[in-house]
């Protein structure tokens, strides 16, 4: 069980209102990801749920019971911190056993659960090492181990992978996803990595300045962003935005088209421009196309290698059905 409901939650630090009134419902077993620009309040929101900060007003309910006033220990939530926050003076075994010890489990039960967690996380060989003797990925697993032994109502993750190098990140991402499949426990996951958000989430919560911009499944956000902010935030490289006559022609204040939804041709197409910087990644090439008169620069993605040189004239054609339209307030026009 692990349904989390925030109603009219606000948070002020001194005079600054970091979270304006906010409602959010996370269902049991769901994998919810919070994304948003740096400083938008992702960590704060997570810490409010954990009980590490007091809400200024509003209520937080866990499984239907009000948990607003409870100390963190009483909320049956487990948290995995960005720095893992392992206890450096305890062996892996002791680290994992710590929450059980605090909950006054008997030793036999503690041993049983630690063994079980170690097995799930492939930590059997390291149980007697100290955190300092582990690699980043192993530490990460210990932190998760410590979280799962208590069989919490939900897991909270605050950018757990941001300290790992790229290769490891991919591996751990898969592991966490698998864990979620296996345990089917609610997870709330903070990240600012696009790929993590898109690949792991059942539900993405996009935040800006403490406000929720959109909540939905990853592809829903990708395909039907509710407003300009979400449209620009989700997807990499960014969506191209066009205002003015071209947008007006489609009955919108702004239209948006993703780089992968534009096709390119040396001879004909809807928009004409010249090639600026091009970035060749081998698998793809990104062209920054200038002088279209629509936007300062448009990004276009092509698969594989297309040889165009700086200054070449090209024509762009958007896939009409993939064009997003927004009104003057930046809201999607359905």
């Amino acid at each position: 069980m692990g349904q989390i409901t925030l109603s009219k939650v606000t948070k002020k630090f001194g005079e600054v209102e970091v979270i304006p009134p906010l409602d959010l419902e996370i269902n049991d077993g769901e994998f919810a990801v919070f994304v948003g620009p740096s400083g938008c309040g992702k960590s704060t929101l997570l810490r409010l749920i954990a009980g590490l900060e007091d809400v200024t007003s509003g209520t937080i309910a866990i499984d239907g019971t009000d948990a607003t006033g409870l100390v963190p220990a009483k909320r049956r939530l487990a948290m995995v911190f960005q720095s893992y926050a392992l206890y450096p003076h305890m062996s892996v075994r002791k680290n994992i056993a710590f929450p059980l010890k605090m909950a006054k489990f008997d030793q036999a039960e503690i041993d049983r659960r630690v063994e079980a967690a170690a097995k799930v996380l492939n930590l059997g060989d390291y149980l007697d090492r100290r955190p300092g003797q582990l690699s980043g990925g192993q530490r990460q697993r210990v932190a998760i181990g410590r979280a799962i032994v208590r069989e919490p109502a939900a897991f909270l993750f605050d950018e757990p992978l941001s300290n790992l190098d790229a290769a490891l990140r991919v591996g751990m991402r898969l592991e966490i996803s698998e864990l979620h499949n296996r345990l089917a426990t609610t997870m709330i996951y903070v990240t600012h990595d696009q790929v993590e958000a898109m690949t792991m989430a059942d539900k993405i919560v996009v935040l800006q300045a403490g406000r929720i911009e959109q909540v939905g499944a990853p592809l829903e956000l990708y395909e039907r962003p509710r407003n300009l902010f979400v449209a620009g935030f989700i997807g990499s490289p960014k969506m191209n935005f066009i205002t003015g006559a071209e947008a007006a022609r489609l009955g919108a204040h702004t239209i948006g088209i993703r780089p992968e939804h534009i096709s390119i041709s040396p001879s004909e197409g809807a928009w004409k421009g010249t090639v600026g910087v091009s970035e060749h990644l081998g698998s793809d090439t990104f062209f920054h196309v200038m002088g279209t008169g629509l936007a300062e620069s448009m990004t276009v993605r092509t698969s594989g290698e297309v040889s165009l040189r700086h200054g070449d004239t090209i024509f762009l054609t958007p896939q009409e059905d993939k064009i997003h339209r927004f009104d003057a307030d930046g809201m999607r026009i359905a």
Partner: protein
Amino acid sequence: MATKHSRAASRLMISPAVLLLLGWMIVPLSMTIYFSFLNYNLLMPGAHNFIGFDNYKYFLTDPAFTTALINTLVLVGGVLLITTVGGTLLALLLDQPIWGQGIVRVLVIAPFFVMPTVSALVWKNMFMNPVNGLFGWIATSLGLPPFDFLAHAPLFSVIMIVAWQWLPFSTLILLTALQSLDSEQMEAAEMDGAGAISRFVYITVPHLARATTVVILIQTIFLLSVFAEILVTTNGGPGTASTNLTYLVYAQSLLQFDVGGGSAGGIIAVILANIVAIFLMRMIGKNLDA
């Protein structure tokens, strides 16, 4: 971090220390203030009548007071100067690759562990004594008349002794600070064309600023109340040449058993110490934040 629970806990946890120190400050201090208005000499029992500010007047107009004030500043300043400059040089030396670094470090740190009384006794008798001391012998073997340190340079001698005790402290802090200097910063300066001296002036010295402040703060705390070294070596003399405030108050209250006068002196010393403290706190507060 800051929930209602943790803030409440925080207040609870800090209160024993705060209350104890408050008590430590207030109880004896208020007694001292009270005594300072009395005509109270330990040797003359009976009524201790209230005499207003007379004790303060006598203490402040004591010709030794100004000398003591100046001596206190010279003593603190002198020791600080020697220990920070000497400590920096020593730290630079010890930071070099040398053989037997461990042993050298052990030798250098040793004076810090020596009781002030012992070090004063040893310096006074076995080194500075012009007849039997080693310095006297060195002077004589060089064909010079032995120099009577404690008579002719009493304050300087005390400064030397105290500096000897505190040099290891500053050396160690500065050495640790030196070792914490980001080597990339040094390399960057090297790439930027800075020679060894420029690197020292522009990179090392500013880097040590924070450590130096701490050295100054901690040492000042201890140096303001230097006492044993003076008592053992010069008794504040000759004349009042090496009397500092602490010693003057001591002389007043414990040599003369004038509790009233001594208390007035103590209060004045407390006030002066607090002026120094405020000054220092300003400085360190700024530097420790940066």
